[in-house]
């Protein structure tokens, strides 16, 4: 290891704040980007699934209404 102790590693002869702030920004943004992209993909899959289920639900309802209508008696004048 290039440093004698853990505190020397942390301080880096006065350059610690510069080095660590860069690494913090790097990990924060990279992990943030990865998590955001992953969650967005899952959200899109979920939205697609709900859309398909909603559509198939409507189609079933329409089919039920249509079949019910076929049994509706129509009043015809007996005169």
């Amino acid at each position, binding site marked *: *290891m*290039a*440093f004698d102790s853990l505190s020397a*590693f942390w301080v*880096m*002869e*006065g*350059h*610690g704040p*510069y*080095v660590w*702030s*860069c*690494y913090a*920004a*790097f990990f924060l*943004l*990279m992990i943030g*980007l*990865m998590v955001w*992209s*992953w969650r*967005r*993909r*899952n959200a*899109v*899959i*979920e939205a*697609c*699934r709900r*859309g*398909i289920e909603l559509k198939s639900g409507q189609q079933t309802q329409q089919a039920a209404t249509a079949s019910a209508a076929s049994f509706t008696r129509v009043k015809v004048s007996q005169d």
Partner: protein
Amino acid sequence: MWQFFHKLGSPKWFFGIAARLMPWLLAGGILLLVAGIVWGLAFAPKDYLQGNSYRIIFIHVPTAFLAQSVYVMMAVAAVVTLVWRMKLADVFVKSVAPVGLVLTFLSLFTGAVWGKPTWGTWWVWDARLTSMLILLFLYGGVIALDRAINDEKSAARAVSVLVLVGVVNIPIIQYSVEWWNTLHQPSTFKLTEKPSMPAEMWVPLLLSVLGMYLLFGWLACLRMQTEILLREQRTRWVKDYVLAGRG
């Protein structure tokens, strides 16, 4: 060859290939990046001139490298979009532009923080820094233009033209340190020469550059998959995929 090209244009085929590649890209990327960073931070020797602040290089160079090469990849995809009207090329440009934006911002940020202890200033309007800032604006412009146009085909064409106009900035970034007097040091890696630093320094740097390439590959596949799902949601295969619950 043409069959491969034809297949490559198929969103369904790409979706399957991406799903198979992604675990390898993610695992390899994290492994190489962590190895490079740990080696660079804790085990690489101190620089005789810059001291320990030079350890920022292990993230500065990979982000700057990727920021430029992502733009070049986008320019190739823009040509493919304009000439062959391949849908996947447009999907690629749209999906990776935000990744390029983040990478460019990170390279500028880490460069500025590195500049303070090394040059005594956070920012100078010299050629390398200014041309990188223009690259950041180009990425922002690409994202904004794509969102401003509702029609998918018109957006794809407009974005492709903008990407191709902006590609002139890439050689300017690359050669700015040679053409003008700048504070920025010359490139660490050159294709034709040996690296300008000892192996204990350039090997971890190379590892983190490779790791970042693999992570970019994972991000590109993931984001392209999302865009493909959005565009193809009315097709049979997307319905089957979504209902099968493979998320």
